[in-house]
């Protein structure tokens, strides 16, 4: 599902962030991506969301070659992926419902078509009762769950998360990561970047450690 072959990423005038990186993540597989701050975890996820382009090498996701993907095809690719961010990236002037519905609206779904899917996604993250509220009235954990509902409402093939528990206490972090494990058990390919070693040990899933631009498989 996700395949990095000798992928290098560097920025002009700066050191290599990723160097000759290789990775295979199969369909329905889950992996946690660990590493110190500045190791390149976010860059790796940006390559996967095509916010950044690879400098060298081949990156294939769900059969799409991201190295050669044309700009006009990027939106269609992104609609096959769900992304969760550390800072939630919610629209504060829109309701919880409108935030989640956005993903389906950009895919061209009408208000009637998307309604039951939005409600189902909110139920799945335990926010079914909060659909009319605005994000600023919710706690940090609840805001993150809105972000997750937005990322899964279109049942993506791949779910990516960049430090989704970064601002949460341990109990809420466990709750959020268990949610990701649940999605992976239902067949979604999941890659979560985290620096929370306690959660990594607890999850018991495949762990990839990124350091000095290289990936290491951890037992």
């Amino acid at each position, binding site marked *: 599902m996700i395949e990095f072959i000798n992928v290098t990423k560097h920025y002009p005038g700066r050191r290599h962030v990723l160097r000759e990186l290789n990775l295979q993540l199969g369909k329905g597989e889950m992996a946690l991506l660990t590493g110190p701050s500045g190791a390149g975890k976010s860059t790796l996820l940006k390559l996967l969301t095509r916010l950044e382009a690879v400098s060298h090498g081949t990156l294939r996701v769900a059969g799409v070659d991201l190295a050669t993907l044309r700009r006009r095809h990027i*939106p269609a690719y992104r609609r096959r992926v769900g992304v969760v961010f550390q800072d939630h*990236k919610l*629209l504060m002037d829109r309701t919880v419902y409108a935030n989640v519905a956005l993903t389906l609206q950009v895919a061209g779904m009408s208000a009637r078509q998307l309604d039951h899917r939005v409600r189902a996604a909110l139920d799945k993250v335990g926010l079914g009762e909060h659909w009319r509220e605005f994000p600023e009235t919710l706690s940090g954990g609840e805001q993150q769950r809105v972000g997750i509902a937005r990322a899964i409402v279109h049942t993506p093939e791949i779910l990516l998360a960049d430090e989704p528990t970064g601002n949460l206490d341990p109990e809420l972090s466990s709750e959020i990561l268990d949610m990701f494990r649940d999605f992976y058990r239902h067949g979604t390919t999941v890659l979560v970047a985290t620096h929370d070693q306690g959660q990594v040990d607890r999850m018991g899933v495949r762990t990839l450690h990124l350091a000095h631009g290289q990936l290491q498989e951890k037992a």
Partner: protein
Amino acid sequence: MSLHIRLQALGNARDTLLRQPIATALTIIALAVVFALPVGLFTALSNLQQLLASWHNQAQISLYLHDDASPQAVAQLRRQLQQSPGVVAVRFVDKNRALADFQRYAGMTAAIQTLGENPLPASLIVELNPLAQSPSSLEAQVQQWSHEPIVRSAQSDLKWVARLQAIVALGTRAVYILAILLALGAVLVMGNTIRLHIEQRRDEIEISSLVGATKSFIRRPFLYQGLIQGILAGFLAWLIVAIAFAILQGPVNHLASLYGTSFPLHALTVGEGFLLVLISAALGWLGSLVAVGRHLNNTVS
């Protein structure tokens, strides 16, 4: 493209405008004033042209005829003149009428009577619309008429027609320049407004882009915002011009009555009003398009 996507974008644009009612109203008023100025001047110019065209009895040419011109030849030339461009009326003045007019206006009855016979020729008086032709083509036409076999000479005073046409041409050119500059101003006003909206909605644009929105999906609400504001500004400009002309009608009536005439001002017709709204909508949309083209690329990843 599904209708519901367009309706969704339209609703999004409407909501954005309603969320900032004062800023939206100020933009619409600014645009309306910008549109009302050239449109008001165009309409005033059109009224002036109508007024000048009604002064055809002031622009006339006298074609003096040979004494031996037959009535048939005079009638044929008269028909020919009536069919010429810009000719409003052709009047035949025979020798006796010419003498009577001369005696009445010149007060030289005694001197004329000493001549024994009537020395004044018959003539064809041609009344023209002074704005129908350029002075040079009018001059050429008079030259052509003066070479007709039964015409002895032609007399005309076309200098004032040339002056009048020059003044109208100057006014028209000035209004065109003003209209182009103000249209550019309208595009810039709208462009700047949309640029500010893009800045304010940077998060929404970024998030929409991350969840797979196409550029056209992101761009559409901004274009509709420009279109909506353009349409509303067009209607408001129409109203401003109508009110201005209604206010001016009283003083114009008074002025016209001092000259013993009447002059009803014509504001915009319904067709012209809708044309104004259409142009205003197009400029609003164009301003948005320019802003979106310039600033959205920096925002969308």
